[in-house]
């Protein structure tokens, strides 16, 4: 079977050390098996690991950074603006990926490539400019220290390319902060697992793309007819208007109501003043415009402006739920002005808002509990809700000043420095936990523990369903839903589309099967597609077990075992470690992995061709 559409069948590989740039053909079997995005990334990272005998330092030149949109990216279908960054993560030392929306992936595809791979290290701070068929590595040391927003504007002006799309890092990326992100379209970020640090380690300030090629589609009109059905379904959904109006900010109320909203570094799971930070407040008092990723009718982005007070004039796209929760309630901040200001600062410096909020929350609690001394804090006290000190600390992390230098290395380093911080900071495998409390949801706890990149919610977001209907779930059901999510979700990142129409508006998976078939001319059933998607989860597990992960790493933060939320509907609830271990064994069994969490050795052959 040959692939009839969906791909240019080209990989652009760039060696920043030697300046060698090459377009390589991609084989049909590679395209069919790995589809795109995260799938390409996982396979290429795996191959690179094998070449280096599974010894790769994430911040050394040999770490391969894969930038991959998918075969559906940029097409007329719901929310097709996604693009994945994949590499060995500096935060965890394991498999890492993060995806961004906006229009960068679309433009990257329009230059006529399916995937961009980067290795090596430029001798000085440079940008990579892919202008259609022409590719150049341009030294631009003058960009050093520029914020993401300024860098994007400067680059567009310097190159005379206003229509280009720019993926750039901020100061945090340059300084290799282990949770630095990659920013595009001014405020869309590939936030997690430190992909910005990897660009920084390669002396690569930005990737600039400008293309004008037709995106290859096997059946254009067939795809359009399918897409119209999907758009129609979404438009008629009860919550569609609410999504346009509030976006992910609507989750704040929900999380507070169900008791999964992190407050005061997860000491609590409800926040008394959450109505000052919820979607309605954002909409009524701050929102000045909508913002959408490419081809997305849900337009979940909100442009917000602070109209008065100390932070007057602060404008940012967002925050969305995670940012609002981690930089708001989790730090004891009840002032939405300050949350916006912190979110904007994170965008400019290029740090992940989830990890930043999590780490600063842990610092505040650490100081409160006496684990950190005033000297550790460089002599500046920091307590809950103290906006100035918090904003200053975010800046210090990005610039690696004083305490910020340690914090910038992420939770693992923090625990090395202060052992007791291990009981306070919430992380799995070195990645700080997202803004969904798992102490009342066994399936969410299992999802965090078994996530390949660490404690991130997107791998299996089961908490809402368990809160709503899963109180009496059996172990089988809990494990089942986690595996189901881990099996379906890679598909979205592989296809290069956003999963929100599916998870939030219930757009059926079958739509995506039809999209895929119309685009590629293949005739896969949904089950066949999901099997390919599930393979990626196996593959990233193989990457991790080869890098030393075993059962002991599929664990949970200390707080989840020992410190229940103080108030709210889930007060007093913790995860019972014995029950959890039992569940984990069942999970391994259902996955076909051994008691130590290792997939069978024979599985490697599947991915070694």
């Amino acid at each position, binding site marked *: 079977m040959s692939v009839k559409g969906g791909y240019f069948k080209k990989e652009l590989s760039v060696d920043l050390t030697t300046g060698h740039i090459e377009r390589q053909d991609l084989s049909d079997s590679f395209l069919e098996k790995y589809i795109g995005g995260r799938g390409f990334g996982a396979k290429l990272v795996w191959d690179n690991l094998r070449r280096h005998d599974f010894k790769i330092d994430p911040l050394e030149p040999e770490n391969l950074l894969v930038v991959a949109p998918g075969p559906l990216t*940029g*097409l*007329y279908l719901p929310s097709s603006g996604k693009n994945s960054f994949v590499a060995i993560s500096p935060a965890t030392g394991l498999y890492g990926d993060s995806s961004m929306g906006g*229009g960068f992936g*679309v433009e990257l595809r*329009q230059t006529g490539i399916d995937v961009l791979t980067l290795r090596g290290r430029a001798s000085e701070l440079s940008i990579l400019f892919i202008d259609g068929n022409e590719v150049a590595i341009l030294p631009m040391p003058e960009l050093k220290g520029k914020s993401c*927003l300024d860098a994007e504007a400067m680059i567009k002006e310097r190159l005379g390319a206003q229509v280009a799309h720019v993926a750039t890092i901020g100061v945090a990326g340059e300084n290799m902060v282990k949770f630095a992100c990659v920013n595009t*379209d*001014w*405020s869309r970020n590939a936030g997690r697992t430190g992909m910005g640090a990897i660009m920084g380690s390669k002396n690569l300030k930005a990737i600039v793309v400008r*293309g*004008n*090629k*037709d*995106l290859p*589609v096997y059946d*254009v*009109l067939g*795809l*359009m007819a399918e897409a119209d059905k999907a*758009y129609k379904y979404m*438009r008629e959904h009860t919550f569609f208007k609410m999504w*346009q109006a509030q976006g992910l900010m609507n989750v704040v109320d929900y999380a507070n109501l169900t008791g999964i909203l992190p407050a005061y570094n997860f000491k609590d799971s409800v926040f008394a003043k959450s109505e000052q930070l919820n979607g*309605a407040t954002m909409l*009524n008092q701050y929102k*000045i*415009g*909508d*913002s*959408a*990723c*490419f*081809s*997305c*009718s*849900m*337009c979940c*982005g909100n*442009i917000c402006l602070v109209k008065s007070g100390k932070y007057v004039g602060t*404008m*940012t*796209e967002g925050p969305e739920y995670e940012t609002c929760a981690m930089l708001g309630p989790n730090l004891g901040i009840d002032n939405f002005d300050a949350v916006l200001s912190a979110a904007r600062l994170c965008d400019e410096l290029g740090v992940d808002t989830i990890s930043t909020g999590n780490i600063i929350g842990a610092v505040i609690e650490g100081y409160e509990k006496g684990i950190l001394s005033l000297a550790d804090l460089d002599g500046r006290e920091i307590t809950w809700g103290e906006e100035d000190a918090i904003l200053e600390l975010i800046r210090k992390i990005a610039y690696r000043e004083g305490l910020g230098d340690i914090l910038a290395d992420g939770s693992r380093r923090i625990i090395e420095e202060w052992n007791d911080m291990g009981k306070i900071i919430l992380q799995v495998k070195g990645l700080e936990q997202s803004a969904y409390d798992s102490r009342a949801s066994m399936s969410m706890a299992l999802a965090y523990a078994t996530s390949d990149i660490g404690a991130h919610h997107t791998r299996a977001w089961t908490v809402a369903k368990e809160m709503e209907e899963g109180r009496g779930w059996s172990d089988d059901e809990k494990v089942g839903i986690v595996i189901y999510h881990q099996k379906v979700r890679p598909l979205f990142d592989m296809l290069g589309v956003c999963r929100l129409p599916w998870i939030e508006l219930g757009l059926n998976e079958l739509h995506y099967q039809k999209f895929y078939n119309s685009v590629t001319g293949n005739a896969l059933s949904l089950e066949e597609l999901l099997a390919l998607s599930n393979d990626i989860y196996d593959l990233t597990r193989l990457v991790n077990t080869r890098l030393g992960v075993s059962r002991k790493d599929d664990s949970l933060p200390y707080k989840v075992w020992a410190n229940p939320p103080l108030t709210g509907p889930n007060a007093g609830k913790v995860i019972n470690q014995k029950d959890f271990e039992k569940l984990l064994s069942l999970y391994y069994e259902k996955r076909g992995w051994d008691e130590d969490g290792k997939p069978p050795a024979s599985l490697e052959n599947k991915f070694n061709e």
Partner: protein
Amino acid sequence: MLKKLTVIPEQCCGCRICELVCAITHFQVNNPKKSAIRVVSTYPHPMIRMPIVCSQCKVPVCAQVCPVDALQWSDGIVQLDQAQCISCYKCVESCPFGAIYAHEECEYPIKCDMCNGDPECVKKCPTGALRLLPEIALGESKRLNNVLSYTAMKEIELYEKGERKVIRYAEVGKEEL
């Protein structure tokens, strides 16, 4: 009745669905760079997302500069006669709005033809930023805004089902009868 494709920038979310729909309708390809409408975004100062599309001017600058009279205004549309066009792109350069486009693979300038009076982009726009309005209605919302912001009006603010609403009213004269 003459209808005009109208853009309301404040409603545009920048999703660029209009670009895709236009390219698919006219060229049967998924390529936003082959559309006759493009969303231009600026951020953060000022923050604007504005679809740029032909205004079908009745005194079209593009037609004035066209050396072969390939552009003609008729029935509310500035029509491009491809048989006459020599693809010099003078129209692209001269349009005051930058609303005519060029692409290296396309022989002719890419210009909005209003899809025979029923533009696809208007039908697919998810936020209502693109509208097809009769000429007689143009400026109506601005007129209404102007009236509503009449300075002698008073304002009270209220929340109804969590939504902020403003009621404006005029103070009726209190002088003795």
